[in-house]
């Protein structure tokens, strides 16, 4: 399995380098594109762990949807870089403390027993006809059904919140209602009136 190790280390180094690029580059568009690269390569890492469905779903959801929104935001909000850099040193201690707490928390989780190599074994190589998606389907909708419904509630809250935050109606709009235009009947547009012919003088 030398080849697999080779793939793992090359993907992992791409992830680390692009993640470093995300936080160090000045142009936010480059940062977003590098984040896309990081997501795509980490989906390769998940694939190496035989998590087929999750790996491709990562590309569909994060790269195909979330990062498109990010790209929209950084491309079109014309962020003023100098203004953003102004308060950097003022806020630095605060950020550093946050980063420190997060690192401690993450290492506490990762170093706990649940993630030790005795509990999580190296996945064995599955045969060709093994469908990861079907296995997930069997579990999510039976054993983990409450968590699944909770996900629906969270999505619903997100939907309502997104509309509440971004929806603004313009008052000066002059748009036409397409449904109304299609549903129009002949009688609304055309009026046949009878006009008796006038006598010729």
């Amino acid at each position, binding site marked *: 399995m030398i*080849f697999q190790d080779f793939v793992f280390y090359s993907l992992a180094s791409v992830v680390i380098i692009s993640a470093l690029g995300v936080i160090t580059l000045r142009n936010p*568009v480059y940062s977003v*594109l590098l984040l*896309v690269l990081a997501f795509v390569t980490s989906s390769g890492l998940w694939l190496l762990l035989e998590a*087929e*469905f999750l790996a*491709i*779903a990562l*590309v*569909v959801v994060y*790269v*195909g*949807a979330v990062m*498109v929104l990010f*790209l*929209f935001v950084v*491309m*079109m909000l014309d962020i003023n870089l100098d203004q953003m850099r102004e308060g950097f040193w003022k806020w630095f201690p605060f950020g550093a403390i946050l980063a420190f707490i997060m690192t401690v928390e993450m290492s506490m989780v990762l170093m706990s027993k649940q993630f030790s190599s005795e509990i999580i074994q190296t996945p064995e190589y599955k045969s*060709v*006809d*093994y*469908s*990861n*998606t*079907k296995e997930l389907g069997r579990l999510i909708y039976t054993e983990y059904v409450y968590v699944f419904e909770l996900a629906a509630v969270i999505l619903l809250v997100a939907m309502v919140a997104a509309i509440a935050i971004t929806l603004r109606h313009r008052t000066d709009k002059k*748009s*036409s209602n*397409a*449904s109304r235009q299609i549903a129009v009947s002949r009688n609304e547009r055309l009026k046949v009136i009878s006009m008796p012919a006038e006598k010729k003088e």
Partner: protein
Amino acid sequence: MDSFQPLFEQLFGSEWGVPLFLLAKNLLLILAIIIPLLLAVAYLTFAERKIIAFMQVRVGPNRVTFFGIPWLGGWGQPIADAVKAIMKEIIIPTGANKFLFLLAPILAITPALAAWAVVPFSPELVLADINAALLYILAMTSLGVYGVIIAGWASNSKYAFLGAMRSAAQVISYELAMGFALVCVLMMSSSLNLGDIVAGQQGGSFLNWYMIPLFPMFLVYFISGVAETNRLPFDVAEGESEIVAGFHVDYSGMAFTIFFLAEYANMILVATLTSIMFLGGWLPPVDIAPFNLIPSIVWLLLKIAIMLFFFLWFRATFPRYRYDQIMRLGWKVFIPITLIWIVLLGAVMQLPEAALQSFPLNLWF
């Protein structure tokens, strides 16, 4: 092909021989897909010009020929176009971001080609027979939007920017309808593998094809496919009469040609997937003597050609949609239809086994 493996092991030793052999074999297979695909793209442009010319009572391209043979008039046109495209200067506007400007066409063509890795051409003929094939294709088509957005932004031109924004919002809207329509296909087939999806439509005649029980989904999928590829009547991203050429207005020469290639490769991909998922793929319409003797790949190619003809026919027939109408069709018509169909189909599938085995449900379940 596998008979060459010992030769490789002899040449490079047993440690390096096998991986090198696999690499060489897969590279050859990939070329065996990409080269016919690019040729098909070239001749699709020719077919487009000829067919639309016939529909408009014109002649179409009829001059460029091979070796001066008169009855091949016009058939050399795609080759001449390709040579012309390579010889044209690639202009990079001063205000543009050079790196992203050149990266955008590459990002457009890569997913358009890579999606073909999992497409089966006959029961045995498939490069990567993965189980999550359909999901992989959904992932690749969702990556296509990056080429457009980056091209529009990197050009630093107002037309390009407007075209990119319109295109991005349109593509992501129709991707939803497409995804929901695919869910219906999955419910019928219980598998994400494209070969299994075709196998699920076996059963004797065209009545077994998913087109019949999923007819509204078939329409939704194909129309969404037309919208995804930014073809007429959904081509407001290019809309030459209002925003000149949209996101690729500042592209020229080979950089422009790559966008063009990507668009047509995507068209062929949508036509192929429609044939595989709804029209029985390589299965003959009736499984009796004269039809099932014809090789299966001929049926697949025939179905693809018919779907491509619809693309061209749409272009010759329909005027361009207005942008608000496009968004309305995607969000307010297609998504409700697909949601209702998913629930209906799921309910039918909960019927007792005896009911599912009776006519006409036994054709599909």
